[in-house]
């Protein structure tokens, strides 16, 4: 019967359990409060209903009572706040070393790029038992990536990256919804998340038609666009050396510093003069409109891959030329 009338969503991620616990607590609290108020109203309304010969007794308010029924709810509210904040903190903080999957949303489809090079549309394959981080952007309007079975949702914005992460716990096929209204086929912008056991996942990975990893695609684009002529991996380039750059703090020409994250790299490609690295001149051309969102993702994956030194090299920024050999991402 519950195929037609489900009352509880599938629970398939580590987050789902903690969200459900908070929900159950709040349902219980709401039931208790509603029943209490309902009972009081019934008792008062019936016990003190209007009858001939009985007048209402005027009762003045009571400050003590007022303060009590302000303070107790406040304390409960603060408790709920703290609980909700803890869950949220966990939801919003991707663990280190999570597998990264890039998402490009557009009216009305989800395009996904795996680090290993697989591309998917409206279908996402992920393994059980691994932290997965989604790095998402939109080509047009605001969308929202929502997997009810994981209890996670994050709006996907044009012009920047937002992220979410999950750790699937149960294999199966789950709904993927767009949860932010995005136009005509908003309700058609749905797909599925296929959670596979690790062995099946490996089989799926090796069965695809992927032509090289995302980072190696990025490297090809890096060369085609001529980035490599200035961003050399020595100190002689007219642009900053990108080896070991990702995730580091970068000093800017105007004295500020920024963390070189996805949004920074994106902006530096599309609109390079927005933040000039200290010691360099604003000579890089604007790439806005010249690279697609998917190409940007590949470039970012490539720049991230430069953080892993090839076997035998020193960890410090090295003289390895990015043009010699494609560097595979971790794993």
């Amino acid at each position, binding site marked *: 019967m519950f195929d037609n009338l*489900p009352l509880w969503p599938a629970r398939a991620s580590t987050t789902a359990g903690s969200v459900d616990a908070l929900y159950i607590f709040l349902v219980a609290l709401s039931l208790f409060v509603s029943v209490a108020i309902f009972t009081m109203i019934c008792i008062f*309304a019936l016990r003190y*209903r209007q009858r001939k010969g009985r*007048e209402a007794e005027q009762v003045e308010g009571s400050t003590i009572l007022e303060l009590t*029924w302000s303070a107790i709810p406040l304390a409960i509210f603060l408790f*709920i706040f703290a609980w909700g904040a803890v869950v*949220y903190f966990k939801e919003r903080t991707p663990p280190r070393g999570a597998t990264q999957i890039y998402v490009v949303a557009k009216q009305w489809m989800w395009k996904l790029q795996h680090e290993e090079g697989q591309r998917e549309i409206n279908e996402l394959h992920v393994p059980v038992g691994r932290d997965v981080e989604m790095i998402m952007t939109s080509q047009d*309007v605001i969308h929202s990536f929502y997997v009810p079975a994981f209890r996670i949702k994050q709006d996907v914005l044009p012009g920047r990256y937002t992220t979410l992460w999950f750790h699937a716990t149960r294999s199966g096929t789950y709904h993927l*919804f767009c949860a932010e209204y995005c136009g005509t086929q908003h309700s058609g912008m749905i797909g599925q998340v296929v959670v596979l056991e690790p062995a099946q996942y490996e089989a799926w990975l090796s069965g695809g038609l992927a032509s090289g990893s995302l980072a190696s695609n990025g490297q090809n684009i890096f060369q085609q666009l001529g980035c490599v002529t200035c961003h050399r991996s020595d100190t002689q380039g007219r642009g900053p050396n990108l080896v070991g750059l990702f995730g580091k703090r970068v000093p800017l020409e105007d004295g500020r510093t920024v963390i070189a994250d996805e949004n920074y790299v994106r902006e530096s490609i599309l609109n390079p003069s927005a933040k000039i690295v200290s010691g360099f001149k604003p000579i890089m051309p604007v790439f806005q409109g010249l690279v697609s969102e998917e190409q940007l993702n590949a470039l970012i994956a490539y720049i991230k891959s430069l953080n892993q030194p090839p076997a035998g090299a020193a960890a410090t920024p090295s003289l390895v030329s990015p043009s010699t050999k494609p560097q595979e991402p971790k794993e």
Partner: protein
Amino acid sequence: MATAAFSHEREHYLNKEYGIRSWLLTTDHKRIALLYLVSITFFFFIGGFLALLIRLELLTPAGDLVQADTYNKLFTMHGQIMVFFFLIPSIPAVLGNFLVPLMIGAKDLAFPRINLLSWYLYILGGILMLHVLLTGGVDTGWTFYTPFSTAFSNTKVIEAGVAIFINGFSSILTGLNFVVTIHRMRAPGMTFSRLPLFIWAHYATSIIQLLGTPVLAITLLLVVFERAFNLGIFDPNRGGDPLLFQHLFWFYSHPAVYIMILPAMAVESEVVACFARKRIFGYNFVAMSSIAIAVFGFLVWAHHMFVAGISLYSALIFSILSYLVAVPSAIKVFNWTATMYKGSVSFTTPMLYAFGFIGLFTMGGLTGLFLAALGLDVHVTDTYFVIAHFHYIMVGGAVMGYLGGLHFWWPKISGRMYPEAWGRLAALLVFIGFNLTFFPQFILGYLGMPRRYWQYPPEFQVLNVLSTAGSTILAVGYLLPMVYFLWSMRYGKIADANPWGAAGLEWMTSSPPPTFNFDETPEVTWEAYNYEHIPAAAEVPVER
């Protein structure tokens, strides 16, 4: 009243003048209230009709009744019409307009002609909105989110934006009028601490209207300009920020929820006091909680944006502030309940609506706690859980308050009694229909059904069918009062000045009141809700 015994009718605001001119050029706050009553009822039934079409489409999982684009326009225009052309003006512009001067012992509002102007602005905006509805509609969602509204929608966004922009000024002018009137026009002896709680809540509402609505107006203008001239304020490709729009929009639109619910709380306080025949328990706390809601209401807007891409830490701040604003609402519920303690409670139609209000508002408020809880909001925001939550507040709360108030003051407004049995039946139908419509949507939301979906996975169908069934009951519950109110204007029993035996200056003048409200300016020497000195009235049924 001695005059009522004479064969020729006593002169009052309804029969003083006749003819269409006497209505369209009136500056009498009571007549303007009736102009508003007719106009917002018109828009309520248009908005309700759109809602029924939405519910009918959702009977089946496939999108089969209307096209996807049509569906998107239906929910957009349902939201815009119900929020801006019904809920926001509902209680303030009808009951507030009628009652604020009467309750404080004034002849009229401070600016009678501005009051009429506000109605004309409402009508101008309304005509433009009807034009949008009839010539293709708008499909942005009532929230106008950018960049969809500015760069992608192919519908009449500019016209709808301008309609709501114009309508906003009517709201600002009403708020301005109330603030000045309450400060400057109170009768001798009517100190702030003697004001009915209706006035306190309207004062708080007016402050929000004055301070918040201009922000909405500016925001809508930015959308219109961006769409018309490609300004780039919200366009990330030109260095703009689509989230900026959401901040600006919710800076008004969250307080707007309090524009809708505070006046319903205002009605609640009057009705509960009257039919428990007691002074409201904790008068000061109820009065101050209205002000606290108005102030804190301005500081919680980003709780609509927890998954929108705001920083983790600002989300924490907005979550905790949202919990703070819940406290004054809780205080009110406790005080209304406590008011009945040792009272003398009668179950008239307005009181049934008041009970319904407490129940539905409590549910709406409690589910608000779910949405303010950050980690849980991530899952339920933008699903049917949110739809259910805000309908419990805005329909379960605000509309129940409005209908309760309309019944309570109908004898004063029309000089006639409505049929009590029909009134109770309608109140019951509204309560049952409402819960059947919206309760299943909480479950749908937790299951993960996103809002604004034209088609949906088949496992959600049973709950959607329940909801649609409920909406038809609700529709009957809303149509009944319109029928019997109209009927009562001719056939209803003549109401005397104070049919409920209620406290308050509005009940001390005749029904319907004369044009300038009081034959002599009253002098107030008593506290509000002095029920111990007011005899119970004939209209209230008494159990033996």
